[in-house]
């Protein structure tokens, strides 16, 4: 009697994600057969490219690292009921600050490394806080301001590395900072493999986030604010303070994503190296797919990263272009989002009941 109920409880939330994955793969299959390639073998090549051997597996995890951190930040903001569309700007500012801190701050390498991480998180956090402050103080919609601030941040970072902090040592004038001292690099987890300490940091962040959301008072308040802002306020939650706090940490996580990418894999800030792969948008998708559950975000971030690295492997071995991955991702999101808003609509209706007006 108990067991089926439990199973039911465990699997019901999984039905729609699984269905969405299935539809996504179906859309991918249609695209693949459109090019005239065998579907099954192409997907096999994709799987091999993502998890085929230890090297590919670690590449997938390395790619998942920034996606996961951004996703956690977005998830935290979602939980508090705000849509942080500004992860890209927060991530890029975090990355460029981390690179500059590692270059400019004197001292032993460990100090440089720690300073870089702190600087990256601070930069991302403060940038997000700016949007939160504009929302709470001046009622400038967060959704819009975060989107706009992205461009300002990305262009400003691009100016920094194309102007005052450009690497002048190389022969070609590339828009990038000089290389960071080797001592301040985040160590690789396995020699010769691309996954680095950043992945461990990301997992730790996910665990910490779960604990905070589940077992602490502020975490409970954040969840309450997201589920029903009126009830939360009635219950004595300081809405402004909580909004600012969750925005700060949401941005700090995005900043951390940029920092570990710089310190663990590129060792310098290269203009466009973080925006071109679309880490921020993929991270957002990971959070959406997981319905803002931190543990779920770990799974979905790895899944989305695997789609991308798998597609690269597939492109090497078959005639199918790697963009199949973005088609699958997009269809997946399109079908998963249907669920997300069913919930939103539900509590919007509640909102109206509280007010008595529409």
């Amino acid at each position, binding site marked *: 009697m108990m067991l089926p109920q439990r199973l039911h409880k465990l699997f019901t939330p999984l039905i729609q994600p699984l269905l969405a994955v299935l539809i996504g793969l179906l859309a991918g299959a249609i695209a693949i057969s459109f090019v005239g390639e065998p579907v099954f073998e192409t997907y096999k090549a994709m799987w091999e490219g993502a998890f085929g051997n230890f090297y590919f597996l670690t590449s997938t995890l390395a790619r998942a690292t920034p996606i996961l951190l951004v996703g956690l930040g977005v998830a935290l903001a979602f939980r508090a009921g705000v849509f942080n569309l500004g992860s890209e700007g927060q991530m890029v500012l975090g990355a460029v600050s981390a690179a500059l801190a590692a270059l400019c701050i004197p001292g032993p390498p460990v100090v440089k490394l720690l300073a870089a991480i702190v600087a990256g998180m601070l930069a991302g956090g403060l940038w997000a806080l700016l949007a939160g402050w504009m929302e709470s103080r001046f009622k*400038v*919609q967060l*959704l819009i301001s975060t989107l*706009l601030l992205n461009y300002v941040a990305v262009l400003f970072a691009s*100016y920094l590395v194309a102007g005052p902090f450009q690497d002048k040592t190389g022969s070609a004038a590339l828009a990038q900072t000089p290389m960071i001292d080797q001592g301040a690099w985040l160590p690789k987890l396995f020699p010769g493999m691309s996954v680095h300490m950043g992945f461990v940091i990301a997992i730790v962040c996910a665990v910490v986030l779960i604990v905070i959301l589940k077992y602490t008072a502020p975490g409970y308040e954040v969840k309450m604010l997201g589920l029903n802002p009126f009830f939360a306020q009635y219950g004595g939650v300081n809405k402004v303070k909580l909004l600012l706090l969750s925005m700060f940490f949401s941005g700090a996580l995005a900043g951390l994503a940029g920092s570990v990418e710089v310190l663990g894999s590129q060792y310098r800030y290269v203009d466009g190296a973080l925006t071109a792969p679309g880490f921020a948008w993929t991270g957002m998708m990971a959070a959406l797919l997981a319905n803002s559950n931190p543990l779920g975000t770990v799974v979905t971030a790895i899944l989305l990263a695997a789609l991308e690295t798998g597609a690269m492997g597939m492109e090497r071995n078959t005639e199918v*272009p790697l963009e199949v991955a973005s088609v699958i991702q997009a269809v997946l*999101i*399109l079908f998963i989002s*249907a669920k997300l808003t069913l919930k939103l609509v539900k509590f*919007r209706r509640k909102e109206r009941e509280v007010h008595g007006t529409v």
Partner: protein
Amino acid sequence: MELFDYSLFVSAIRMVSPILLAALGGALCARVGIFNVGLEGLILAGAFSAIVGNHFTENIFLALLTAVAVSVLVSLLFGYATIHLKSNPIVAGIAINFLMLGLTTFALRAIFDVKGAYYNKDMSGLPKVDIPFVEDIPVVGQLISGHSPLVYTAFLAAILLYVFFYRTVTGFRVLAVGKNEAAARSLGLKVTTIQYGAIIMSGVLCGLAGAQLSLGQVTMFTEGMTAGRGFIALVAMMLGQSHPIGIAGSSLLFGLMDALSIRLQGFSMPTQFTAMLPYVITIIAMFFLKDRGSDSLAGQHTSR
């Protein structure tokens, strides 16, 4: 080379049209309570299918028609997701952007068997329209005459949309849906039909915007050639308060900034700050326009 001369303004007017067309499409959606983040994807779909249509039919009109048809199809997908499946418009819009970026790049390989860009010198682009008499006026003629027909369509669309919104009954109904969906529904307005209509029209406008990109100045398609213009259009829509004339103004401003940053490259000056200006201006404007700004985003309570 001068920093400001006629050619700067001429290129500004040229750059305005895709932004203006798409922003008007976005405004239509915003006015019925749907925040359309998928403009970028819709424009990209239009740009690509315009080239496909041009390649297979070798007829510029049919190419335009293809662009519009495909963009409308994509916008219907967006509409189905947001209206029927009730998914969050922002999430659906982001998905549409990803989908179109993937699909166009994919189809570029599948149809033309090239990677990166498709260019064919036999393809003819949009013709230049020389307006009789106006072209002979010294300064004005240089500015106004000799653009592609879509440039004129863009400005005409802004005026038409203004007339539609504020001078016709259907227009008022559209505005009513955006103002208060429940009230509009209780008055017996077919809210869903009106929303679909707005989304389809935004597909048409974005299709034209895409065609102007791929057939207007140069006749080619490159991967991700919209390069954020959909988002600029979104910003122009916000700054213009979803008001057609306001949008025309903000689009002109952004087009000028676009032209200016290209011009500044010739002066080896940092272009990042001119490129940043539209966004900074819009953020500052949000402080002053915030009360009216929420108007164009009615039904968008996610940030509360």
